[in-house]
């Protein structure tokens, strides 16, 4: 009797509590039902699951949702390999080759001896810290500061700092995760298709006289290349020339005309 009395209350109370809670949850699940694309959960299975943020989304489920909605490519998750990308593509019924493999490219040629400095920076070796000190030590407000923040943050070791004070990309190691573009205070590294043949390696939007004064190798936006191009593949946008690779035939006329060599052929024709 004593034991019965001691067990009956806890059992009744806890049982009742659990039943009410479960009922509440069940009803709430119905009232607050939101249609979730089942493919999102399926896709999430194949993502890294570390919520690393390497894809640029707030966690893996966010990224999965973006992939399903088509806002992100199937290979958005940089933490997993091609086999997982294929699995994701299979769920969505598309092929992995939605976009070409992208790699980072350093859009500045203003090495130590070519670009002028405003002052000598001796602070913490980090581009973001240098930006806080008078906006960086380079005269050019668009150029690479060369303190290697992108190198330190590259999760795949694809970047290294060259002798000339500019980072170098190892195209084989680069996965195109875009970490470097996010950490760089000036956005110098850009993601470009791996087969890109021609590009203007400069980020400066300064006018010709300014660039002429502070950097030997920058694009001045003078327009000589534009005039030289027979295919009309080059435009000048905000004092920086832009090449449309789909029109370019690599005739090489622009290279001859460019006074600073900012326009570059990247791969053999």
């Amino acid at each position, binding site marked *: 009797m004593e*034991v019965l009395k*001691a*067990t009956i209350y*806890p*059992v009744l*109370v*806890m*049982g009742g*509590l*659990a*039943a009410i*809670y*479960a*009922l509440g*949850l*069940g*009803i709430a*699940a*119905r009232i607050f039902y939101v249609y979730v694309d089942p493919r999102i959960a399926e896709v999430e299975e194949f993502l890294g699951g570390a919520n690393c943020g390497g894809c640029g989304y707030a966690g893996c489920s966010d990224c999965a949702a973006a992939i399903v909605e088509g806002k992100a490519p199937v290979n958005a998750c940089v933490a997993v390999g091609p086999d997982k990308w294929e699995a994701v593509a299979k769920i969505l019924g598309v092929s992995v080759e939605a976009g070409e493999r992208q790699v980072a490219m350093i859009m500045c040629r203003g090495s130590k001896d070519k670009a002028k400095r405003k002052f000598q920076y001796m602070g913490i070796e980090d581009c973001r810290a240098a930006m806080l000190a008078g906006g960086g030590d380079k005269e050019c407000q668009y150029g690479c500061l060369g303190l290697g923040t992108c190198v330190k943050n590259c999760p795949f070791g694809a970047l290294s700092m060259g002798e000339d004070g500019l980072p170098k990309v190892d195209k084989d190691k680069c996965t195109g995760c875009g970490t470097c573009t996010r950490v760089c205070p000036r956005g110098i590294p850009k993601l470009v298709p791996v087969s890109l043949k021609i590009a203007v390696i400069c980020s400066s939007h300064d006018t010709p006289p300014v660039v002429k004064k502070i950097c030997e190798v920058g694009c001045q936006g003078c327009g000589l290349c534009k005039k030289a191009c027979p295919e009309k593949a080059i435009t000048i946008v905000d004092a920086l020339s832009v090449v449309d690779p789909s029109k370019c035939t690599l005739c090489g006329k622009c290279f001859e005309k460019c006074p600073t060599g900012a326009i570059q052929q990247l791969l053999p024709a």
Partner: protein
Amino acid sequence: MREIVKLIVVLTAFCVGSAFSLAFVKEATKERIEYQKLKILVAPAVKAVFPSYDNDPILERVKVKLSEKEVINVFPAKKAGSLIGIAYEGIGSGHGGAVEVLVGIDLNGKILGIKVVKHGETPGIGTKAVESQEFLNQFKGKGVGSKLTVGGDIEAVSGATETSTAITEAVRKAIEIFPKLKEEVRG
């Protein structure tokens, strides 16, 4: 609907199972836990109120029913197997709530010693009465038949009258039930 029912059944089953097994564990450990708690809380006080004994009064405690709801723990002190006195708590109301006093009484109804077990009195003011050995010693030798009133046979600690009164009240209440308890413990 079936989903909801399934949810309820599973969760309830888990909770019921858990509560059921826990009730048994609780029953099995109840005695031990009470003993342990009393040992920390009351054992030092028991030592203080009895001059000498050789048993474990906490382990041999007797539960006495005073009324339908009130149950009191009585701690018997023994020497060489024979009962020399009993100790139990009386409660008086002080400035900061209940004041619990352990009173040790010999078989003739004479107080052997008292000790405050739990109180919420103001530190530095009310606690003067709680800590004053001189005040507490006044109760020694008094017992069944003593009036036990502050200002009468008990002198309050100056500045701590309220607490002194509460302690006296607790002891008086304890003495009142002594005859009944003595019978129960001797059994």
